[in-house]
């Protein structure tokens, strides 16, 4: 059975069946009351708990709906990524247009890139306090350096002929950057952004776990503090599904809007 429709649907069908099999085995383990299900309660248990609480997580005034937690985490991730994306493009432009800027900026770029975003958390909390700015800063630090190095690599990949043709048609150096280099590198930089989304996602969750009191990361910490394994499992499920949906959405945007390759 190899039709175009099947080829397109196969990964989803096979993947879906695979996930369904694991959930079924998990549920059977729960019904059999295997000891492991105390730590890993099956979906029927933790979903029942969350539905019962009307998707409201937490205690008293600190409780938040699932939608509020999702919007907090997504807001932080996307704000940090957007800032990093814009800053990486600007830095890439500055470096590619001026050797002096390259000499000034490169040492910082390559010295700071290997530092894990999590390492910035204590400093960020001291500087910004426990608020959204801390989480956005962590995401930014996790994405910006890698994205800038990737942007520079993308700029170097742009065929020399593109610039020569534009210059030949009367474009100034700045116009060449805006109308030729930018569109040429955008798909590659966006793909890098997508691959770095996972890093940004993990960074913000860690920030939410150790400092912030809301968001998806905070759900896990709340579960830990309350010895509530159902809440931990639910938090993990939401994090996994959300990350998957965003990754697929970014891939779709990349394929539909920024489809060309140089």
């Amino acid at each position, binding site marked *: 059975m190899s039709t175009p429709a099947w080829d397109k649907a196969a990964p989803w069908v096979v993947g879906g069946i695979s996930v369904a099999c694991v959930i079924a085995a998990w549920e059977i383990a729960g019904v059999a009351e295997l000891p492991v299900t105390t730590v890993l309660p099956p979906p029927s248990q933790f979903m029942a708990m969350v539905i019962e609480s009307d998707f409201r997580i937490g205690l008293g005034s600190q409780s938040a709906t699932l939608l509020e937690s999702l919007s907090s985490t997504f807001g932080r991730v996307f704000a940090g990524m957007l800032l990093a994306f814009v800053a990486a493009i600007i830095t890439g432009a500055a470096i590619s247009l001026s050797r002096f800027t390259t000499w000034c900026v490169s040492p910082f770029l390559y010295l700071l890139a290997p530092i894990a975003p999590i390492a910035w958390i204590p400093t960020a909390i001291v500087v910004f306090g426990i608020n959204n700015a801390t989480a956005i800063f962590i995401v930014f630090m996790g994405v910006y350096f890698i994205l800038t190095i990737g942007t520079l690599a993308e700029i170097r990949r742009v065929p020399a002929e593109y610039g020569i043709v534009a210059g030949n048609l*009367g474009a100034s150096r700045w*116009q060449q950057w805006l109308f030729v280099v930018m569109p040429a590198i955008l798909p590659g930089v966006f793909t890098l952004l997508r691959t770095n989304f996972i890093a940004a996602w993990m960074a913000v969750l860690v920030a939410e776990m150790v400092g912030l009191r809301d968001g998806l990361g905070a759900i896990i910490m709340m579960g830990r503090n309350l010895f509530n394994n159902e809440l931990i499992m639910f938090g993990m499920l939401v994090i996994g599904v959300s990350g998957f949906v965003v990754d697929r959405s970014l891939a779709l945007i990349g394929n539909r809007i920024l489809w060309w390759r140089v």
Partner: protein
Amino acid sequence: MAVATESQEPVFRLDDLTVNFRGQSGPVPSPLQGLNLDIRANEITTILGASGCGKSTLLRTLGGFVIPEDTGGVLYKKQFLTGPTTDIVMIFQENNLYPWLTVKGNVRFGLRFRKNAPEDLDKAVADMLSNVGLSDAARAYPHQLSGGMRQRTAIARALITRPRVLLLDEPFSALDISLKRRMHSMIHTLQEETDISMVMVTHDVEEAITVGDRVLVLGGNPANVLVDADARGPEMRDRYSKEYLNLQKKIEEVIF
């Protein structure tokens, strides 16, 4: 096609042209060392030569993309070229088109930075696409085009800017033979219609004779002109004519 005369002002005058490349341990000499040559206006000059003879370097120097040594250079409009100018447009073997723009967008891109662009841009683009037979492909993207269509788009984009000189760097080398021949006749038609000067570098002897009004063969180190032949006239477009075969033999004896 204007017939060149001895008194006609050349479009380029190569005056003691010397080009050296920048190497890690000092300048690396190219085969172009003290070359003197006139490239005539309003005709197609084809330049042939073995690999490494300096023909592509010469073309890039004519475009102002390679700056010669101080001792000589390329005289264009009686002044030494010091960089690219919008009067002289170059077409490469590949990477001419921007993949994110349609055929129409690519051709229109040629006028984006021109101060004297025509008022009705859409009409100018449509007319140019019609000239190169690409009206039906206006909305297609480069990856949807054949090699010949891509090169026609690049030529249309260059011509819409009304340059004085069109430089072509082995533009048809990636095309199959039938497409290549169609492109040759299109180049002739466009040259006759626009009367612009064209300089084309190629390693294909047949292409050099059938396209060129004048065929130059470069060779030796330092490079000099080994053959300078007049290739005008219908007999040179006929691959079986005596004149064509004689010139082909003469060139091949020099090159091989």
